[in-house]
């Protein structure tokens, strides 16, 4: 069987296309080869396609068709409705049940307790922080009861002393602070102001007190440097204690000329100008350089 070179080139062209985008080529090849007569081409004459091409085109076409059909059936219905994802997924996630009901729901039945709490230092501590998830209770108020913590464990989660906690957050040392006594004997969790206004600043400012205790300022009472309004003890954020305002305050003890020789003394005029003392020395632990 002899074929002219130009015909051969045509086959090669069509083959290259066929191998790359088999799906649409059969039409193209038919157009190129008007006398193509199916896959058997023994006998007859003139330019014909090599036998390989239609066979391969067929195999690729079947594979592609299968893929298209599979896509048609298998892609989920809502896929791509909003973005490249199943829109139905958003709905099913949104339909998940809630377990924490939210404090608004508690108010509907327990408003007196809520009002007390909202007027207290626990106004930010919503019901479910201590009582746990309440959605089941709201759905069946009589059958399901939320937990009522009665021991010390729950309170200690927040109020045990931990130096990493922010300064000023009320913290106690559970070992020495009325050990074994349930917190609620003295503090109403819904209005936790202590029954006796704390004598000692350390009740809330434990971190500072502890640091001061091991420093050279251990003997100084808080009141030497801070004047706390009476209301600070009952409503700490509304009335804050005073702080020293200038260098001469520290100079009262630390300026040259003070007769107490054991106290380090400096010349206020030259030492560390123009900074205030506590920009370099931490008054509650002044050893730090």
């Amino acid at each position, binding site marked *: 069987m002899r074929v002219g070179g130009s015909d051969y080139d045509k086959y090669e062209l069509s083959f290259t296309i066929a191998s790359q985008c088999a799906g649409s080529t059969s039409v193209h090849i038919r157009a190129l080869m008007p006398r193509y007569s199916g896959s058997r081409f023994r006998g007859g004459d003139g330019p014909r396609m090599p036998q390989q091409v239609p066979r391969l085109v067929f195999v690729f076409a079947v594979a592609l068709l299968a893929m298209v059909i599979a896509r048609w059936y298998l892609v989920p219905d809502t896929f791509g409705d909003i*973005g490249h994802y*199943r829109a139905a997924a958003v709905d099913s996630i*949104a339909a998940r049940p809630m377990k924490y009901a939210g404090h608004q729901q508690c108010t509907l039945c327990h408003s*007196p307790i809520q009002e007390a709490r909202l007027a207290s230092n626990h106004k930010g501590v919503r019901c479910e*922080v201590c009582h746990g998830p309440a959605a089941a209770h709201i759905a069946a108020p009589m059958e399901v009861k939320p937990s009522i913590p009665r021991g010390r464990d729950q309170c200690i989660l927040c109020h045990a002393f931990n130096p990493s906690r922010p300064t000023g957050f009320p913290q106690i040392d559970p070992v020495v602070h009325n050990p074994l006594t349930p917190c609620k004997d003295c503090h109403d969790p819904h209005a936790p102001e202590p029954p006796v206004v704390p004598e000692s600043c350390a009740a809330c400012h434990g971190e500072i007190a502890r640091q001061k205790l091991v420093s050279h300022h251990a003997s100084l009472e808080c009141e030497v440097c801070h004047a706390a309004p009476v209301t600070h003890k009952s409503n700490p954020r509304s009335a804050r204690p005073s702080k020293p305002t200038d260098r001469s305050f520290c100079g009262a003890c630390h300026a040259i000329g003070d007769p107490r020789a054991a106290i380090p003394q400096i010349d206020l005029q030259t030492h560390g100008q123009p900074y205030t003392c506590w920009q370099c020395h931490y008054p509650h632990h002044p050893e730090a350089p």
Partner: protein
Amino acid sequence: MSTARFDPTRSRSEPPASPVLDRRRFLGEAAAGACAAAPFLLGVVRLPAAFGQQPDGAYDASEHYYGMGVDPRRCIGCARCVAACKTENDVPAEPHFFNTWIERYVITEDDAVQVDSPNGGLDGFPPLTQANVERTFFVPKLCNHCDNPPCVQVCPVGATFMTEDGVVLVDDEYCIGCRYCIQACPYGARYLHPETHVAAKCTFCYHRLVRGQVPACVEVCPTGARIFGEVRGRATPLARFMRFNQIQVLKPHLNTAPKVLYANLDGEVR
């Protein structure tokens, strides 16, 4: 004395009784509670539609764009958020699966930084062993719901996505469990759920948002260290938080554009 503020009629001369043991007040409250609860118990009044086990149809995602503010200076490391999240979202109880967790940073005077998060903070934090602590604080972590989320970019099948209201979710019926998203998350916010074998993560409690509730972690944060709301425009606590604080995000150099915004974040946090 302290009880005087919510009961001004009470005489100061009365002995300071322990409030919980105050029978008179307890009975009063119980009665009031019963009265308030009666209509619900009798089935006369129904709870507002916002609180249903199914979201009502009124939610319009296009009206919202959520974000969360975190103020580490308020965080006391109590990990109530971690506990609530595990309950609310059925997060496996084992210690290595968290939608949110609390890290403790301890920076000593030699500039050494030590971080820990025992059981995500749930078991409390052991006493500090370091001497010369320069500063120490807690940082709540969670999925940052990036505006430019690398996890969504890499998901081969479109099983994780950002909703119209800006929340990054996982379609657990479609996820193939290839874990590429877990690799792509710079914040360690994703894990493979040990039972469903799909990627899982914080959803901002999407099922609560559509019912008008805040995420569970925000609901139970006793100090307001987590602030939830709209990052665009609307008057929400988050908008105020963003106006009055200097805002930082985690790993800004990765250009993920997180929507969890930190105020006063220490440079060592990453």
